[in-house]
């Protein structure tokens, strides 16, 4: 068993250790490479920024807790941006596992920071089943689908909801999602009701969104933790995403190295085996 054969069959746990080190090392030694903003992120930031202060926008929490590392920083950065412009924010979630609970926790945390009043500056509608029916239902009237908000307060008792009946009263929908829900915000809500939709999505979903942005169906897009870091930079409030960029860089280099070494080993051992047989 020469050097290359042994290298090729090392225990998988050594590789796990390599990745663990390449993720924790940059937290001890901070390297701070500049984060440059891509045009798609700029487009989404400008779309919100150009809206008049105090206009009503909708922020959706369409992500499962397992992708929160990428999507939570996006929701936090978006909320900071909206509250800084004194916008009225209506939040909801189409995810039955954790969506409304995360929405409630984050909106209350960030709203407290900006001294926003629940029911006047922001409302959390919570969750209703079957997102296709919910998306069409909100076009008729929000109250037909959401008779009350997440904490059982009827919409009649929430001052903000008097001026928000359906999509005509909403200037922009900022979708934060980790699954196909964002496709339906585009192909149902934007296509049939003309509401501008921008989205922050996990990196797994991002490649597909480029075709919606290119077709003008989607106004800007954040892709993965890097997208969140760019938006944090534009909003001017360094959050978890920017702090994670160094670790992301090192981990990527490590995986590229593993692919290269793995392939070299593969070709060397294959040549050796064919010579032997």
């Amino acid at each position, binding site marked *: 068993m020469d050097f290359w054969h042994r290298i090729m069959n090392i225990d998988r746990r050594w590789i796990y250790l390599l990745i663990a080190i390449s993720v924790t090392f940059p937290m001890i030694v901070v390297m701070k490479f500049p984060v440059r903003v891509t045009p798609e992120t700029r487009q989404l930031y400008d779309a919100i920024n150009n809206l008049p202060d105090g206009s009503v926008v909708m922020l959706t929490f369409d992500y499962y807790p397992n992708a929160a590392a*990428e999507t939570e920083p996006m929701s936090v950065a978006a909320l900071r941006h909206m509250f800084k412009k004194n916008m009225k924010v209506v939040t909801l979630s189409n995810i039955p596992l954790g969506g409304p609970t995360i929405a409630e926790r984050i909106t209350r945390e960030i709203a407290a920071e900006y001294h926003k009043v629940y029911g006047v500056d922001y409302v959390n509608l919570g969750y209703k089943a079957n997102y*296709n029916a919910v998306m069409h239902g909100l076009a008729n009237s929000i109250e037909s689908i959401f008779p009350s908000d997440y904490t059982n307060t*009827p919409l009649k008792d929430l001052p903000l909801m008097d001026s928000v009946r359906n999509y005509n009263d909403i200037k922009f929908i900022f979708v934060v999602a980790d699954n196909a829900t964002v496709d339906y915000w585009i192909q149902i809500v934007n296509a049939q009701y003309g509401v501008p939709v921008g989205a922050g999505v996990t990196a797994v979903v991002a490649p597909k969104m480029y075709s919606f942005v290119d077709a003008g169906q989607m106004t800007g897009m954040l892709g993965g933790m890097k997208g969140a870091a760019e938006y944090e930079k534009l909003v001017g409030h360094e959050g978890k995403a920017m702090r994670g960029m160094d670790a992301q860089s090192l981990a990527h280099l490590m995986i590229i190295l593993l692919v290269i070494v793995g392939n070299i080993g593969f070709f060397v051992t294959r040549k050796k085996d064919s010579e032997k047989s």
Partner: protein
Amino acid sequence: MGDLTFIDHFQLWLRAYLILSLFSFLYRDNLFYRFSEHIFAGLSAGYYVGLIWQTVIIQQLVNPMIDNGDWWLVFPGLLGVLMFARLTRKWTWVSRVSLAFVIGNTAGIYLISSLHGLILPQMLSTMKAVNNSGSFSRILLAVVVIVGVISTLIYFYFSKEHKGILGATARVGIWFIMIAFGAHFGYTVMARVSLLIGRAQFLYYDWGTSIRQIF
């Protein structure tokens, strides 16, 4: 993060224990992993029950019926309860009407939204790719997009043998698909790494503060 109260410490140490107990599976399947894993499966299932009880049964059925007297909400409620017939073997057919009502509605929505919301706009922007091309790189981009869309569609065309021009276009299609899937590969790796960074950040920053304050 300020100095932490006892409850903060307890919560941080609890979360750290749960995370490390699951990561221990990487070393070897063990007791701690299985213990946490089964609690996790139960809690996630229990979450659905609590959520549906509040958001559907209380908010959409009970409260409107009592407060605004919408007694006709009994019908959707009945249709929903009929769904439980699926749990029995003999009475499954009873739930078919409720299932048909939901799936039929979704089918109607998808039939329209697929054609109007996806296919037409994507066809339109492929055609328009030609006129927003000013500089040379823009023209090249337009050519790449148009050739790419046509060759991908032809690659997934099954009614004729891939020979002659059709075969050549499909060959071009596979090259475009490999480049696009390469980009998707890079993005998916990025996503999984970010999730691990999220865990490392919690253990290093949040749990780390608690450790530093205690010791």
